[in-house]
């Protein structure tokens, strides 16, 4: 049987136990990354997910080349992740309540936000507005995608603008932070949610620990940017374990869409 080594505690876990435990370490509780489709599978009601803008592909606006051309990196990412971009968008039911949903996938170029991620978030927000649905976004991202230069920076503005329109329509937006979420995604649509939920141990910050250490020339505390410290600092609403996430989201969705008291 295949053995998995926990990235945090280094202990062995059988693949069966690891998958059965939703990729949470049975020894230390470390929440390992999930692909977008794995996340949808454990979150949405079975068979309820329909995908939006599945075939949307990146455009190499800048003809960007570092050690490799951007176009090559995109092809590699598609091969590696099995999806076309760093976010999977669509709608699904959770505990019987329909919602628009975006799930970022760190396997696709570190979940970086380029113009496709920006546009898919716009399409999903517009879908929410059109159908009067709440919006959920699961974040996992290293930040803006450098290979799209200024166009990727502008996606921060673009996504915030879409979320603002959605909120003005009286629709709820929850953001679920998964490990790791940093940079341009943290500083745009992730932090303007009505409710911010984080998985235990997830890194959620603007500048990553190494960048901060280089700037202040000091080591940062071991819990820098982690869920527990963020909760203490008032930057997130709650820490929810992966096993409980579907329940908590179901309850929140019910309460936010329950219009009994509204005139």
């Amino acid at each position, binding site marked *: 049987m295949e053995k998995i080594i926990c990235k945090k505690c280094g202990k062995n876990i059988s693949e069966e136990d690891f998958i059965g435990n939703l990729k949470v370490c049975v020894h230390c509780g470390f929440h390992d990354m999930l692909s977008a489709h794995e996340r949808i599978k454990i979150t949405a009601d079975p068979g309820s997910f329909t995908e939006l803008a599945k075939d949307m592909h990146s455009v190499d606006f800048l003809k960007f080349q570092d050690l490799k051309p951007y176009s090559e990196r995109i092809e590699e990412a598609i091969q590696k992740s099995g999806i076309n971009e760093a976010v999977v968008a669509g709608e699904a039911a959770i505990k019987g309540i329909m919602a628009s949903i975006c799930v970022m996938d760190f396997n696709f170029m570190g979940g970086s936000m380029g113009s496709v991620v920006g546009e898919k978030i716009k399409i999903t927000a517009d879908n929410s507005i059109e159908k009067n649905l709440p919006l959920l976004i699961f974040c996992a991202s290293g930040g803006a995608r450098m290979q799209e230069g200024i166009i*990727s920076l502008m*996606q921060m503005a673009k996504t*915030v603008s879409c979320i603002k329109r959605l909120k003005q329509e009286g629709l709820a937006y929850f953001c679920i932070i998964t490990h790791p979420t940093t940079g341009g995604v943290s500083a745009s649509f992730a932090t303007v949610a009505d409710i911010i939920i984080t998985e235990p141990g997830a890194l959620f910050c603007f500048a990553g620990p190494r960048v901060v250490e280089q700037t202040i020339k000091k080591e940062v505390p071991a819990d820098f940017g982690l869920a527990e*410290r963020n909760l203490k600092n008032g930057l997130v609403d709650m820490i929810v374990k992966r096993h409980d996430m579907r329940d908590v989201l179901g309850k929140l969705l019910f309460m936010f869409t329950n219009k009994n008291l509204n005139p």
Partner: protein
Amino acid sequence: MEVEKIKNLHKSFLKDTLKSVFKIEKLKRITGFSGVHFNDAEKKLAEKIENYRKVEREAIKSWRIVELSRDEKRPHTPDYINGIFDDFISFSGDRQGYDDKSIITGLGILDGSTVAVIGHNKGSGIKERIEYNFGSSMPQGYRKAARIMDIAQRFGFCLVTFIDTPGAYPALEAEDSGQAGAIARSIYEMFSLDVPTITVLIGEGGSGGALALAIGNFIMMLENSTYSVISPEGCASILWRDSSAAKLASRALKLTSRDLLKLGVIDKIIYEPMGGAQNNPGRMIKIVKSYLKNIIKKYSNLKDFDFKTHRAQKYESIGITAGSVQQKL
């Protein structure tokens, strides 16, 4: 192959170039191999080297602009404010326990109208520069800026922002007090304003820290200023894994005013006095003043214009849009 031809070529190009060189050397050793194929291979190699040389020449040009944008002698936000507005009065503090001096906020008069002003402040002289984190803001700075945005909204003042920052301050205290959320909230607030917003990029437009104050109906960029998702040094160390590639990164990122106008991210380039703004700050400030006067006058006359929707549509159409993708398919 003469070594001369590949001398000083950046090391990130060498691997690829040497591969071609070895291929040709190998071909040479095949007896009877000559003529058209060999000439082709040599020609291709020469083209490759020439192309790399061209990339390097362009990189030197964009790097020169990076250096100019950071030149300490360039006029900074306080110089523009003093030279452009009458009776400028600055305000302090986020009302939550802190005053971030890396951002100036206040009100001034231009052409008889009250204008709300926000700008990054890098400070002058080493003491001020350290005190102002070299223009890198704390979350509290963006919260201070939000106060003047609210005042502009309620009193109908046009908002002008001056952008000049290496980026938001990457420090432990900044993260602990919500740097990411402060930037996002600032962008959100700028999208909420019904009044016109005008942004002038005067030096460094560093990443999220710049964008937080740069959501403009009209965006002007000084010729030798920059605007980028990441510093060329940061980009080089991540993507090239080599900080010596910063010049190449500065070219690849397309961060100059000419690049950004072509990409449709800015609306206007303001050309600088010969050699750069640092050579004639007084004249530079006068030029910016005249552009600002014109655009504010134009916007004041647009009585029923929906500036808020204009901003939303402008930013939401940057990059890929569903319409354009359908066309492609």
